[in-house]
């Protein structure tokens, strides 16, 4: 963590955000975010998108024909 982290601009913080996350740091606890409503809101928006995906995209059942086709192919390959 740099001593100037809490004084960096939003552009500077967001430009290095990807690398920050890659390094394993929790972006939400970064000093800049602690004092910046805008960047805190950005992180919240990204979490909202992730949460929406969890809720809106249920897993889907394949039709029974898929298994029928798999069985037929297995039998053909076994001959």
């Amino acid at each position: 963590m740099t001593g100037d982290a809490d004084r960096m601009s939003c552009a500077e913080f967001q430009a290095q955000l990807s690398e920050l996350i890659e390094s394993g740091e929790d972006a939400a606890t970064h000093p800049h975010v602690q004092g910046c409503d805008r960047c805190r809101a950005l992180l919240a928006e990204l979490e909202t998108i992730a949460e929406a995906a969890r809720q809106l995209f249920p897993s889907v059942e394949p039709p029974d024909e898929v298994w029928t086709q798999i069985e037929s192919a297995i039998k053909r390959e076994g001959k």
Partner: protein
Amino acid sequence: MPNSPSPAQASSRSRPNGGAEQPPAAEGQADQPSVAARPGSMDSAEGDVLARAQAGDHQAFAHLYALHKRRIYSLCLRMVGNVAEAEDLTQEAFLQLHRKIATFRGDSAFSTWLHRLAINVVLMQLRKKGLSLISLDEAMEPTPEEGPSRSFGAPDLTLTGAIDRLALERAVADLPAGYRLIFILHDVEGFEHNEIASMLDCSIGNSKSQLHKARLKLRDALRAQKRPEERS
């Protein structure tokens, strides 16, 4: 690629081929182990089924299909966005599983290994369709123009409200394949970064960073979709 070949542990409880019938129902049913709850997890019952399937027990293989079919089909469907293609890819993924199951050594969770196999099938299909995807490495490295924009503007408060499913589906479908894959595996399927890193042969940090870029790109797309609505 999935694990290199190694003799599989054969179970002494193998049964003969059970013939053509629908596999037992599995996910979401009270009397079956739920691998859907935690993607990479496997209980001892599934471990036993896996060992029997590795020994050539057709009924056990049918059980594995029943346990994993929803997740594999859903992954294929989200990646290609077409029901008929997703069915073909699911079929191909499980046929490859049938051919290679004896080589699974348990170095990673079975679900992780199966997903990696399915991902390769999907990426092959995307390559056939002419998309510039050759390998997992390339899927993980979208071109600069495919990356999220560097907009440092104020957050769009309209996104903090409800996100429309169709809008999100459209935005996910428009993501570059590598971002789409990471987003589906982590945010939709619930895999952890260490599992995704194992599937895609990348570092955990790379998985985290790619997911962040995917979410940023989705945010860009959702904001872009919102603007015309707001004007009308």
